[in-house]
């Protein structure tokens, strides 16, 4: 009786999650996979095969874009970590009480507006007739307007800005759990700031660093708005290619194949990253 009821409770509680997984993640992916295996041989005539995947490997533009997206995403992740770590350390270790909450909120505030608005904000700052260009002219540092949009640096700024919070939050959490007396003991035993950072702080924060990096990397790789808007039509972002196949070229078959390749790529890079840092996914996600 009781065991039946507790079973029922269990399934009722699990139902939303299971439905979510099944309807929104598994079914669409199965559908997409089937679509990606269809080869168009004529009007409304299809065969099953890997021709769509072959197209990707035979066309240098496609896999170059693919490699560039991966490279840029990794760079954005590293840059976010380098900028985010000092911020997280400051919030977690050097502030107390009210100011801690305030600083944390300040990291959160940009996320109260949509990504589109945030990206347009950067465009206003960086474009030829934008704030920074005008300021430089007014100060007499440059003679004519400067275009700072539509290059890789602009994409990088946008990606780092968009993902900062997702790096800072896990880092603050892990650094918060580092006992201050460990750092003091390190100093007491003659350690310098550098050696304490290397031998005590970073090993302790590694699970947070890895989980932050995974999230930021995934977000960058799958980002569409920021690279397109800040990088212009030459941005060559892989999600842009997928969009083109689906919407512009109406070639769902190739688009689906690209989607699966992106999934495979991101999984592979995360796997390699975990192996290199000696962390396991379960340990990282438990943070």
């Amino acid at each position, binding site marked *: 009786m009781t065991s039946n009821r507790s079973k029922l409770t269990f399934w009722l509680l699990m139902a939303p999650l299971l439905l979510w997984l099944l309807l929104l993640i598994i079914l669409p992916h199965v559908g997409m996979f089937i679509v990606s295996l269809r080869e168009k041989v004529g009007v409304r005539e299809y065969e099953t095969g890997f021709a769509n995947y072959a197209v990707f490997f035979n066309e240098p533009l496609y896999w170059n874009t693919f490699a560039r997206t991966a490279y840029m995403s990794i760079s954005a992740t590293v840059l976010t970590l380098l900028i985010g770590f000092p911020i997280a350390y400051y919030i977690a270790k050097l502030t107390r009480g009210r100011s801690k909450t305030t600083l944390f909120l300040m990291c959160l505030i940009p996320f109260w507006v949509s990504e589109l608005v945030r990206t347009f904000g950067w465009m206003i700052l960086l474009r030829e007739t934008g704030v920074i260009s005008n300021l430089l002219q007014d100060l007499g540092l440059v003679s004519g307007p400067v275009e700072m949009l539509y290059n890789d640096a602009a994409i990088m700024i946008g990606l780092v800005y968009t993902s900062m919070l997702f790096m800072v939050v896990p880092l603050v959490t892990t650094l918060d759990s580092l006992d201050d007396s*460990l750092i003091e003991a390190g100093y*007491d035993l003659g*350690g*310098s700031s550098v050696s304490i950072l290397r*031998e*005590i702080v970073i090993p302790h924060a590694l699970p947070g660093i890895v989980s932050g990096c995974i999230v930021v990397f995934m977000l960058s790789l799958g980002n569409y708005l920021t690279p397109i808007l800040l990088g212009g039509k030459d941005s060559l972002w892989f999600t842009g290619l997928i969009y083109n196949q689906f919407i512009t070229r109406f070639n769902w078959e190739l688009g689906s194949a690209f989607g699966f390749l992106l999934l495979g790529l991101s999984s592979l890079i995360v796997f390699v990253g975990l192996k290199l840092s000696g962390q396991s996914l379960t340990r990282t996600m438990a943070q």
Partner: protein
Amino acid sequence: MTDTPDLECRAISKSFDDFQAVRDVSFGVPKGTFFSILGPSGCGKTTLLRMIAGFQKPSAGDLLIKGRSVLDVPPNKRPVSMVFQHLALFPMMNIGANVGFGLRQRGVNKTDIKKQVDRVLDRVGLAGVAERPVTSLSGGQKQRVAIARCMVLEPDVLLLDEPLGALDLKLREHMKVELKQLQSEFNTTFVYITHDQSEALVMSDQVAVMNNGVFEQVGSARDLYYAPDTAFVAGFVGEANRFTAKVDTAAAGRLSMTTDQGRPLAGVDAGQGVGVGERVTVFIRPEAVRIARTEKEVASLGNKGQASVTNVLFNGGNSQLILRDEQTGVALNVALPQTGEFRDLAPGDTVHFGWQPDQTRVYREGQP
């Protein structure tokens, strides 16, 4: 004095925004001494220790180690090491790496580090554990690793911040003896802070009793117990019965007074020069009170009376009796002698009690 003390504090003070944690404390610790600072929580002892370690800067005063001022020396350059309250062993390293941490910072080469780590682990009785993770150790073993980690650097002074606080009672008793042994073996100056008087009394050569940021008294454990300078020390170190009274006569340090409940007492002035008519606090240790079945046995004592037993708090060798003075109705704590003759004492029994005037220490009332 030709010997410079290993550690010397000269009029050290530390104030935070609106609160003075340490006030004008001066002391010297000779080489090889086990020096304890004993005080209730919040008395400023941790602040004092952190100033010696270099984590906090004194507001005033000077701090000398082996005769040299270390005020401007950062904590990672000071020749002192600290055993933290929760030990602060690095969980991300194995035991060998923990102990070798300080040597690595000094740039000692790998083979020498390994040799020294093995030697110091051997000395604390933990040979062959260097490759194991910190979590595999018991509380007492962790303690020894924490001490080994400091001692491998051969510091001039080792600071210990209540390291026994987290251990269970049995292990704590054991570690007391062991710490004292380790100290005499390494022959290093130990500065130990604690709120537990038995830790301080058992282990130390010198004990400083601290209260409200000042040292109340510095002396051997014996001095503190038998001849406390102030009422605070008398109340804090050891057990004591406390009465308030008014002085009737005073002659050459010998006082006679009457307690508020009306019992006349004879006692000795604890050196404060109390005069006739002053209000005083009187301390009598439970161990100093003799009890007897017959009046004759206590007849020779300066303070005596008859009481009924209200309670027997049986605790083996530390058993106590709670008596009610039949004359005044005041409760009196008395140690139960374990010589056998009082084994059958029960609540309701009548006993005679008495103690020497020498064991009755008198302090001016209202003085800390």
